[in-house]
């Protein structure tokens, strides 16, 4: 693991730290706090690798940080339980989609310093705003891009994948014709990323009536859904769940698939498992859009400070450090995450060709509905899409079912909006 940072970045890190500790000194009138360390909770790779960011921070500020790594799939209930039980960590990672919810219940504090949320990629702070105030600092962004097998595409006469839907599907059919026993697109039916990327590119609004009802029968969403389903109908993508694939990365590396739409986390896998697939065998491109690349959503991770944190000032110092350019770049090296701060992208390491598609996608982000029910609706919609792909529903039925489910989940919100209690 590349712990030794290159000199210029270390400089940046140190500068960020100095700014942070200066701010801390300004408030040094406060007596010596609780000797226990500042607590940080983060999920998945971020949680596992965050400890690596801490030694320089502790050296510069004297603040100890204790990191707990939460499993993604259990993090929502753990965080809410912690809030209910007054056991919140001082600083926590939140996917942008949860910020509104945690802000509404009063679990997280508004961002104290506007400088923390300036200089970010446009569109990112829309998702973290609640009641007109920022409640979390965007940290990293994970839009989808397509990883493709250069060798397989070249054999079919393609330098890279076409970036419009029709061309993409046509390429898929060509690849399938040459290798009828293999698949083309690795899009497991329990992952919603691909469908929602297509929907974003088609310009689907997803919810309507002030986000109180599903809008899954719109012509835009219909176009995305039909395109999505056609890839399975043409047998270009397998009607399988990720669990059935067991190890999707290995399937891609072994050539069972030519195209693998995924987030930047794939870059870490590609580095760690370089023995399975040589670097010259794969490439990255933007996801195809209806008529060429288009804006799409990207899951972004944010950092928030608990409203109840007794050490809010130190907590914000930590957030400032972690979302600063130096730490962002260090993390990019460690786990491949993409900095939300635009100035970080000027660094040499961000000029790598594999990052280019991500960068161009990040300048065109769409914001998904900022309501607390969104996470659940997305899961439900994907479950209905799975039934469409499996032939249990027609596409008209599927879209009607998606709306019914979304409306049921939004019932409470609808009642509150109608009563004028929330916006």
């Amino acid at each position, binding site marked *: 693991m590349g712990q030794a940072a290159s000199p210029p970045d270390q400089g940046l890190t140190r500068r960020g730290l100095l700014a942070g500790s200066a701010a801390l000194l300004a408030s040094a009138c406060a007596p010596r706090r609780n000797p226990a360390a500042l607590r940080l909770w983060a999920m*998945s790779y971020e949680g596992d690798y965050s400890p690596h960011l801490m030694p320089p921070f502790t050296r510069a500020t004297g603040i100890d940080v204790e990191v707990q790594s939460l499993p993604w799939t*259990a993090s929502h209930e753990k965080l809410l*339980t912690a809030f*209910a*039980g007054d056991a919140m960590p001082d600083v926590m990672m939140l996917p942008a989609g949860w910020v509104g919810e945690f802000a509404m219940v009063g679990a997280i504090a508004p961002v104290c310093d506007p400088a923390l949320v300036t200089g970010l990629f446009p569109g990112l702070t829309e998702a973290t705003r609640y009641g007109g105030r920022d409640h979390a600092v965007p940290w990293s962004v994970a839009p989808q891009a397509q990883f493709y097998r250069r060798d397989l595409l070249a054999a079919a006469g393609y330098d890279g994948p076409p970036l419009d839907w029709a061309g993409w599907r046509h390429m898929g059919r060509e690849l399938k014709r040459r290798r009828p026993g293999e698949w083309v697109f690795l899009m497991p039916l329990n992952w919603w990323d691909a469908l929602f990327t297509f929907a974003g590119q088609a310009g689907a609004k997803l919810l309507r009536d002030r986000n109180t009802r599903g809008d899954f029968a719109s012509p835009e969403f219909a176009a995305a859904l039909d395109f999505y389903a056609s890839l399975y109908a043409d047998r270009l993508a397998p009607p399988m769940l990720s669990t059935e694939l067991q190890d999707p990365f290995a399937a891609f590396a072994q050539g069972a698939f030519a195209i693998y739409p995924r987030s930047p986390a794939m870059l870490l896998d590609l580095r760690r498992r370089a023995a399975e697939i040589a670097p010259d065998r794969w490439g990255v491109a933007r996801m195809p859009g209806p008529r060429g690349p288009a804006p799409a959503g990207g899951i972004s991770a944010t950092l928030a400070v608990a409203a109840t944190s007794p050490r809010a000032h130190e907590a914000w110092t930590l957030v400032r450090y972690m979302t600063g350019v130096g730490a962002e770049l260090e993390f990019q090296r460690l786990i491949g995450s993409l900095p939300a701060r635009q100035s970080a992208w000027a660094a040499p390491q961000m000029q790598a060709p594999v990052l280019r598609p991500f960068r161009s996608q990040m300048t065109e982000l769409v914001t998904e509905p900022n309501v607390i029910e969104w996470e659940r609706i997305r899961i439900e919609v994907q479950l209905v899409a799975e039934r469409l792909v499996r032939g249990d529903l027609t596409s008209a039925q599927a879209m009607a079912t998606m709306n019914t489910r979304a409306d049921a989940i939004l019932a409470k919100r609808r009642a509150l909006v109608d009563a004028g209690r929330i916006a």
Partner: protein
Amino acid sequence: MAVTVPRARIRAILANAAVAAVTLLTLLPLAWMVTVSFMPRGEANHFPPPFWPSRWSWENYHELLVRRLIDGAWFDYRMVPALWNSLGIAALSTLFGLLLTVPAGYAFAKLRFTGRERLLRLLIVSLIVPGQVAMLPLFLIFKELGLVNSYAGVILPSLAGIFAILFVRQATLGIPDEMLDAARLDGASEARIFGSIVLPLLAPIVVTLALFMFLGSWNDFLWPLIILSDQHRYTLPVAVAAIGREHAADGELMMAAAVVTTLPVLALFLALQRFYMNGLLGGSVKG
């Protein structure tokens, strides 16, 4: 007639072999758990699955149990705190559980008081209520009391030992009334009768009950999962479930975690199995 003896012998051999085979099959997963936990990382992911480590290695236990410094950063699964938490919670649940239920069970069996029969019926009826129904409101109550994410929050619900009361009562019924009445005539106080006459007679039952309570608390999952949010407070099952979500691919590490979680109680069970089995079959006291 000469045929019958060998036939009976063959039958005996077959029956014994069948029992041995079934037992072996039953213990296989546990044995495999132990051997894999000693394999070097990645070794279990081979076909055919290896049963014996190519070399015995402590690395999985080391990674799991010891806080390690990697490139200046601390990595910690917090299994050792979980082990202490599990031990402490199970011990306290058992201790308080016994203190609360053993006297109560005796009272329901041998002491006359108004409303006894009605309360007893009520207890039997409440036995039907599945604990899960109470969990959601209980969480809200505990939230108001500040018991969420606390040891007390884990232990308190386990003290509602209706089954334990009925179990002790059943056993106590076997003690002859004459014995207690004689003591009363001699002027012994009720507390003394309980302490020096009843309790010694109940000793085996108390051991059985303690074992039930300890194992029950140690293996409890749903409520600790709900009520605990800080990793420093996790019990072993909650910790293992959390580690498993992120390390599903690291078989050897997870087996080590499973060994740490199962071995202490398996050892306890084996040491005290006589009491456990007697308890299962509705142990009684011969007075």
